Protein backbone atom coordinates (compact mmCIF):
# COMPACT_ATOMS: atom_id res chain seq x y z
CA UNK A 1 0.00 0.00 0.00
CA UNK A 2 1.31 3.44 -0.93
CA UNK A 3 -0.73 5.48 1.51
CA UNK A 4 -0.39 5.88 5.25
CA UNK A 5 -3.68 7.68 5.76
CA UNK A 6 -6.66 9.10 3.90
CA UNK A 7 -5.25 12.62 4.07
CA UNK A 8 -2.04 11.26 2.59
CA UNK A 9 -4.12 9.75 -0.21
CA UNK A 10 -6.02 12.97 -0.89
CA UNK A 11 -2.80 14.99 -0.89
CA UNK A 12 -1.43 12.84 -3.77
CA UNK A 13 2.14 13.75 -2.85
CA UNK A 14 1.46 17.44 -3.53
CA UNK A 15 -0.19 16.82 -6.91
CA UNK A 16 -3.76 16.85 -5.58
CA UNK A 17 -4.92 19.65 -7.92
CA UNK A 18 -3.70 17.84 -11.04
CA UNK A 19 -4.72 14.29 -10.18
CA UNK A 20 -8.10 15.11 -8.62
CA UNK A 21 -8.77 17.74 -11.29
CA UNK A 22 -8.47 14.97 -13.87
CA UNK A 23 -10.62 12.54 -11.91
CA UNK A 24 -13.29 15.16 -11.19
CA UNK A 25 -13.65 16.22 -14.83
CA UNK A 26 -13.93 12.57 -15.86
CA UNK A 27 -16.66 11.94 -13.30
CA UNK A 28 -18.57 15.09 -14.34
CA UNK A 29 -18.45 14.29 -18.06
CA UNK A 30 -19.28 10.59 -17.74
CA UNK A 31 -22.16 11.25 -15.32
CA UNK A 32 -23.33 14.11 -17.55
CA UNK A 33 -23.35 11.91 -20.63
CA UNK A 34 -25.23 9.10 -18.90
CA UNK A 35 -27.84 11.55 -17.55
CA UNK A 36 -28.16 13.25 -20.96
CA UNK A 37 -28.82 9.93 -22.73
CA UNK A 38 -31.37 8.92 -20.07
CA UNK A 39 -33.16 12.25 -20.40
CA UNK A 40 -33.21 11.95 -24.17
CA UNK A 41 -34.84 8.53 -23.91
CA UNK A 42 -37.38 9.69 -21.32
CA UNK A 43 -38.35 12.67 -23.48
CA UNK A 44 -38.82 10.50 -26.56
CA UNK A 45 -40.88 7.91 -24.69
CA UNK A 46 -43.08 10.53 -22.99
CA UNK A 47 -43.68 12.49 -26.19
CA UNK A 48 -44.38 9.51 -28.42
CA UNK A 49 -46.37 7.74 -25.73
CA UNK A 50 -48.80 10.65 -25.63
CA UNK A 51 -48.85 10.88 -29.43
CA UNK A 52 -49.43 7.14 -29.96
CA UNK A 53 -52.25 7.01 -27.38
CA UNK A 54 -54.06 10.03 -28.80
CA UNK A 55 -53.79 8.57 -32.32
CA UNK A 56 -55.16 5.25 -31.11
CA UNK A 57 -58.08 7.02 -29.35
CA UNK A 58 -58.93 8.96 -32.49
CA UNK A 59 -58.93 5.87 -34.69
CA UNK A 60 -61.10 4.06 -32.12
CA UNK A 61 -63.58 6.95 -32.15
CA UNK A 62 -63.67 6.93 -35.93
CA UNK A 63 -64.44 3.22 -35.98
CA UNK A 64 -67.21 3.54 -33.43
Amino acid at each position, binding site marked *: *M*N*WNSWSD*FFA*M*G*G*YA*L*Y*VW*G*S*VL*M*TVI*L*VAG*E*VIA*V*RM*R*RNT*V*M*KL*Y*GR*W*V*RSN*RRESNENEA
Partner: protein
Amino acid sequence: MSTVNQTFASRAESSGSGFFKYASPQTFFPLAGKMIPWFATAAVIFTIVGLYIGFAVAPTDHQQGESYRIIFIHVPAAWMSMFIYLVMAFWSVVGLTLNTRLSSMMATALAPTGAMFTFLALWTGALWGKPTWGTWWVWDARLTSELILLFLYIGFMALQASIDDARRADKAGAVLALVGVVNIPIIYFSVQWWNTLHQGSSVSLTKAPSMAMTMLLGMLIMALASWAYTIAVALCRVRCIMLEREKHTDWVKDYVEKNT
Protein backbone atom coordinates in the same frame (compact mmCIF):
# COMPACT_ATOMS: atom_id res chain seq x y z
CA MET B 1 -26.91 6.45 -54.78
CA SER B 2 -27.36 3.92 -57.54
CA THR B 3 -30.53 1.90 -57.81
CA VAL B 4 -28.54 -1.30 -57.33
CA ASN B 5 -27.47 -0.13 -53.91
CA GLN B 6 -30.97 0.91 -53.00
CA THR B 7 -32.57 -2.40 -53.92
CA PHE B 8 -29.78 -4.22 -52.15
CA ALA B 9 -30.19 -2.20 -49.00
CA SER B 10 -33.95 -2.25 -48.97
CA ARG B 11 -34.01 -5.99 -49.51
CA ALA B 12 -31.49 -6.48 -46.76
CA GLU B 13 -33.51 -4.35 -44.41
CA SER B 14 -36.94 -5.71 -45.15
CA SER B 15 -36.55 -9.48 -45.38
CA GLY B 16 -33.20 -10.04 -43.75
CA SER B 17 -31.19 -13.17 -43.33
CA GLY B 18 -27.90 -13.78 -41.57
CA PHE B 19 -25.79 -10.76 -40.83
CA PHE B 20 -27.99 -8.29 -42.67
CA LYS B 21 -30.88 -9.21 -40.43
CA TYR B 22 -29.32 -6.94 -37.81
CA ALA B 23 -28.83 -4.13 -40.30
CA SER B 24 -32.47 -3.25 -39.77
CA PRO B 25 -33.28 -0.96 -36.82
CA GLN B 26 -36.30 -3.08 -35.96
CA THR B 27 -34.25 -6.22 -35.28
CA PHE B 28 -31.23 -4.43 -33.86
CA PHE B 29 -33.24 -2.39 -31.35
CA PRO B 30 -34.13 -5.27 -28.95
CA LEU B 31 -30.68 -6.84 -29.39
CA ALA B 32 -29.02 -3.57 -28.38
CA GLY B 33 -31.38 -3.36 -25.42
CA LYS B 34 -30.23 -6.79 -24.22
CA MET B 35 -26.55 -5.93 -24.67
CA ILE B 36 -26.57 -2.61 -22.75
CA PRO B 37 -26.79 -4.01 -19.16
CA TRP B 38 -23.91 -6.41 -19.80
CA PHE B 39 -21.57 -3.74 -21.12
CA ALA B 40 -22.67 -1.27 -18.44
CA THR B 41 -21.94 -3.82 -15.70
CA ALA B 42 -18.58 -4.66 -17.27
CA ALA B 43 -17.75 -0.94 -17.40
CA VAL B 44 -18.52 -0.47 -13.69
CA ILE B 45 -16.51 -3.55 -12.64
CA PHE B 46 -13.50 -2.68 -14.81
CA THR B 47 -13.55 0.91 -13.55
CA ILE B 48 -13.54 -0.17 -9.90
CA VAL B 49 -10.76 -2.73 -10.44
CA GLY B 50 -8.76 -0.38 -12.67
CA LEU B 51 -8.97 2.56 -10.27
CA TYR B 52 -8.11 0.32 -7.34
CA ILE B 53 -4.96 -0.94 -9.10
CA GLY B 54 -4.13 2.54 -10.35
CA PHE B 55 -4.62 4.44 -7.11
CA ALA B 56 -3.91 1.85 -4.41
CA VAL B 57 -1.69 -0.91 -5.78
CA ALA B 58 0.52 0.74 -8.41
CA PRO B 59 3.75 2.13 -6.93
CA THR B 60 4.77 5.80 -6.93
CA ASP B 61 6.76 6.81 -10.00
CA HIS B 62 10.36 7.60 -9.09
CA GLN B 63 10.52 10.58 -11.47
CA GLN B 64 7.03 12.05 -11.53
CA GLY B 65 5.84 11.15 -8.04
CA GLU B 66 2.07 10.77 -7.75
CA SER B 67 1.28 13.04 -10.68
CA TYR B 68 1.78 10.12 -13.06
CA ARG B 69 -1.48 8.58 -11.78
CA ILE B 70 -3.26 10.78 -14.32
CA ILE B 71 -2.07 8.15 -16.83
CA PHE B 72 -4.91 5.83 -15.77
CA ILE B 73 -7.41 8.30 -17.21
CA HIS B 74 -5.32 10.11 -19.81
CA VAL B 75 -4.09 7.17 -21.89
CA PRO B 76 -7.39 5.23 -22.10
CA ALA B 77 -9.21 8.48 -22.97
CA ALA B 78 -6.68 9.31 -25.69
CA TRP B 79 -6.86 5.78 -27.13
CA MET B 80 -10.66 5.88 -27.16
CA SER B 81 -10.70 9.33 -28.78
CA MET B 82 -8.81 7.93 -31.78
CA PHE B 83 -10.44 4.52 -31.84
CA ILE B 84 -14.00 5.86 -31.70
CA TYR B 85 -13.21 8.12 -34.65
CA LEU B 86 -12.04 5.10 -36.67
CA VAL B 87 -15.20 3.17 -35.81
CA MET B 88 -17.31 6.24 -36.64
CA ALA B 89 -15.57 6.57 -40.02
CA PHE B 90 -16.04 2.83 -40.63
CA TRP B 91 -19.82 3.00 -40.05
CA SER B 92 -19.94 6.14 -42.19
CA VAL B 93 -18.34 4.25 -45.11
CA VAL B 94 -20.73 1.35 -44.67
CA GLY B 95 -23.65 3.78 -44.56
CA LEU B 96 -22.49 5.53 -47.71
CA THR B 97 -21.76 2.44 -49.77
CA LEU B 98 -24.47 -0.01 -48.67
CA ASN B 99 -27.03 2.70 -47.88
CA THR B 100 -27.94 1.04 -44.59
CA ARG B 101 -29.67 3.41 -42.20
CA LEU B 102 -28.43 1.68 -39.06
CA SER B 103 -24.74 2.16 -39.94
CA SER B 104 -25.22 5.90 -40.23
CA MET B 105 -27.14 5.95 -36.95
CA MET B 106 -24.22 4.17 -35.27
CA ALA B 107 -21.81 6.81 -36.58
CA THR B 108 -24.06 9.58 -35.26
CA ALA B 109 -24.41 7.85 -31.89
CA LEU B 110 -20.64 7.52 -31.41
CA ALA B 111 -19.70 11.16 -32.09
CA PRO B 112 -20.62 12.72 -28.70
CA THR B 113 -18.78 10.00 -26.76
CA GLY B 114 -15.75 10.42 -29.01
CA ALA B 115 -15.80 14.16 -28.44
CA MET B 116 -16.05 13.58 -24.69
CA PHE B 117 -12.99 11.32 -24.62
CA THR B 118 -11.05 13.75 -26.83
CA PHE B 119 -11.82 16.59 -24.45
CA LEU B 120 -10.84 14.41 -21.49
CA ALA B 121 -7.53 13.49 -23.14
CA LEU B 122 -6.79 17.19 -23.65
CA TRP B 123 -7.95 18.21 -20.18
CA THR B 124 -6.03 15.51 -18.30
CA GLY B 125 -3.07 16.15 -20.59
CA ALA B 126 -3.03 19.81 -19.59
CA LEU B 127 -3.26 18.89 -15.90
CA TRP B 128 -0.40 16.46 -16.38
CA GLY B 129 1.67 18.84 -18.47
CA LYS B 130 1.67 21.61 -15.87
CA PRO B 131 3.61 19.73 -13.14
CA THR B 132 5.83 17.71 -15.51
CA TRP B 133 6.54 20.09 -18.41
CA GLY B 134 5.82 23.35 -16.62
CA THR B 135 3.08 24.36 -19.03
CA TRP B 136 -0.63 23.62 -19.55
CA TRP B 137 -0.39 23.70 -23.30
CA VAL B 138 2.12 23.81 -26.15
CA TRP B 139 1.43 23.89 -29.87
CA ASP B 140 3.32 20.70 -30.55
CA ALA B 141 2.25 18.12 -33.12
CA ARG B 142 0.59 15.64 -30.74
CA LEU B 143 -1.43 18.22 -28.83
CA THR B 144 -2.43 20.22 -31.89
CA SER B 145 -3.58 17.19 -33.89
CA GLU B 146 -5.60 15.96 -30.90
CA LEU B 147 -7.24 19.41 -30.69
CA ILE B 148 -8.09 19.13 -34.40
CA LEU B 149 -9.71 15.77 -33.60
CA LEU B 150 -11.97 17.54 -31.09
CA PHE B 151 -12.93 20.08 -33.79
CA LEU B 152 -13.66 17.22 -36.22
CA TYR B 153 -16.05 15.62 -33.75
CA ILE B 154 -17.74 18.94 -33.03
CA GLY B 155 -17.87 19.72 -36.76
CA PHE B 156 -19.46 16.33 -37.47
CA MET B 157 -22.15 16.88 -34.84
CA ALA B 158 -22.80 20.49 -35.85
CA LEU B 159 -23.06 19.58 -39.53
CA GLN B 160 -25.53 16.77 -38.85
CA ALA B 161 -27.57 18.95 -36.52
CA SER B 162 -27.82 21.67 -39.16
CA ILE B 163 -29.42 19.42 -41.80
CA ASP B 164 -33.09 18.61 -41.27
CA ASP B 165 -33.33 15.60 -43.57
CA ALA B 166 -31.83 12.69 -41.61
CA ARG B 167 -30.51 10.77 -44.62
CA ARG B 168 -28.85 13.85 -46.11
CA ALA B 169 -27.35 14.61 -42.70
CA ASP B 170 -25.99 11.05 -42.60
CA LYS B 171 -24.28 11.45 -45.95
CA ALA B 172 -22.83 14.89 -45.26
CA GLY B 173 -21.51 13.71 -41.90
CA ALA B 174 -20.06 10.57 -43.48
CA VAL B 175 -18.05 12.59 -45.99
CA LEU B 176 -16.70 14.83 -43.22
CA ALA B 177 -15.81 11.80 -41.08
CA LEU B 178 -13.99 10.22 -44.03
CA VAL B 179 -11.97 13.32 -44.87
CA GLY B 180 -11.04 13.74 -41.21
CA VAL B 181 -9.78 10.19 -40.82
CA VAL B 182 -6.41 11.32 -42.24
CA ASN B 183 -5.89 13.05 -38.88
CA ILE B 184 -5.78 9.77 -36.94
CA PRO B 185 -2.40 8.48 -38.24
CA ILE B 186 -1.09 12.03 -37.83
CA ILE B 187 -2.00 11.95 -34.12
CA TYR B 188 -0.69 8.44 -33.67
CA PHE B 189 2.67 8.91 -35.39
CA SER B 190 3.16 12.58 -34.48
CA VAL B 191 5.55 11.68 -31.64
CA GLN B 192 7.78 9.81 -34.12
CA TRP B 193 7.52 12.15 -37.09
CA TRP B 194 8.17 15.41 -35.29
CA ASN B 195 10.11 16.59 -32.29
CA THR B 196 7.38 16.86 -29.72
CA LEU B 197 7.29 17.74 -26.08
CA HIS B 198 4.88 14.85 -25.69
CA GLN B 199 6.72 11.64 -24.95
CA GLY B 200 6.68 8.60 -27.23
CA SER B 201 4.29 5.76 -26.52
CA SER B 202 5.04 3.82 -23.37
CA VAL B 203 3.22 0.74 -24.62
CA SER B 204 4.24 -1.04 -27.80
CA LEU B 205 3.36 -4.38 -29.33
CA THR B 206 6.95 -5.12 -30.31
CA LYS B 207 8.99 -3.89 -27.35
CA ALA B 208 8.81 -4.79 -23.69
CA PRO B 209 6.77 -2.18 -21.80
CA SER B 210 8.83 0.62 -20.26
CA MET B 211 6.71 0.76 -17.13
CA ALA B 212 5.94 -1.34 -14.06
CA MET B 213 3.62 -4.29 -14.62
CA THR B 214 0.99 -3.03 -12.17
CA MET B 215 0.95 0.39 -13.89
CA LEU B 216 0.47 -1.27 -17.26
CA LEU B 217 -2.23 -3.58 -15.89
CA GLY B 218 -4.16 -0.70 -14.33
CA MET B 219 -3.99 1.22 -17.59
CA LEU B 220 -5.18 -1.72 -19.68
CA ILE B 221 -8.09 -2.44 -17.34
CA MET B 222 -9.10 1.24 -17.49
CA ALA B 223 -8.93 0.95 -21.30
CA LEU B 224 -11.29 -2.06 -21.13
CA ALA B 225 -13.59 -0.02 -18.88
CA SER B 226 -13.73 2.80 -21.43
CA TRP B 227 -14.45 0.31 -24.20
CA ALA B 228 -17.34 -1.22 -22.28
CA TYR B 229 -18.63 2.25 -21.33
CA THR B 230 -18.46 3.47 -24.91
CA ILE B 231 -20.36 0.45 -26.23
CA ALA B 232 -23.04 0.75 -23.56
CA VAL B 233 -23.62 4.50 -23.91
CA ALA B 234 -23.45 4.42 -27.74
CA LEU B 235 -26.03 1.62 -27.84
CA CYS B 236 -28.30 3.63 -25.52
CA ARG B 237 -27.94 6.64 -27.77
CA VAL B 238 -28.48 4.70 -30.99
CA ARG B 239 -31.70 3.33 -29.52
CA CYS B 240 -32.89 6.90 -28.89
CA ILE B 241 -31.97 7.83 -32.46
CA MET B 242 -33.88 4.80 -33.79
CA LEU B 243 -37.01 5.76 -31.84
CA GLU B 244 -36.76 9.37 -33.03
CA ARG B 245 -36.20 8.55 -36.68
CA GLU B 246 -38.55 5.59 -37.01
CA LYS B 247 -41.40 7.09 -35.01
CA HIS B 248 -43.94 6.52 -37.78
CA THR B 249 -43.30 2.79 -38.01
CA ASP B 250 -45.47 0.20 -36.31
CA TRP B 251 -42.66 -1.37 -34.31
CA VAL B 252 -41.85 1.95 -32.62
CA LYS B 253 -45.53 2.56 -31.86
CA ASP B 254 -45.84 -0.92 -30.35
CA TYR B 255 -42.67 -0.47 -28.33
CA VAL B 256 -43.65 2.96 -27.02
CA GLU B 257 -47.13 1.75 -26.12
CA LYS B 258 -45.82 -1.25 -24.21
CA ASN B 259 -43.20 0.76 -22.31
CA THR B 260 -45.03 3.89 -21.19
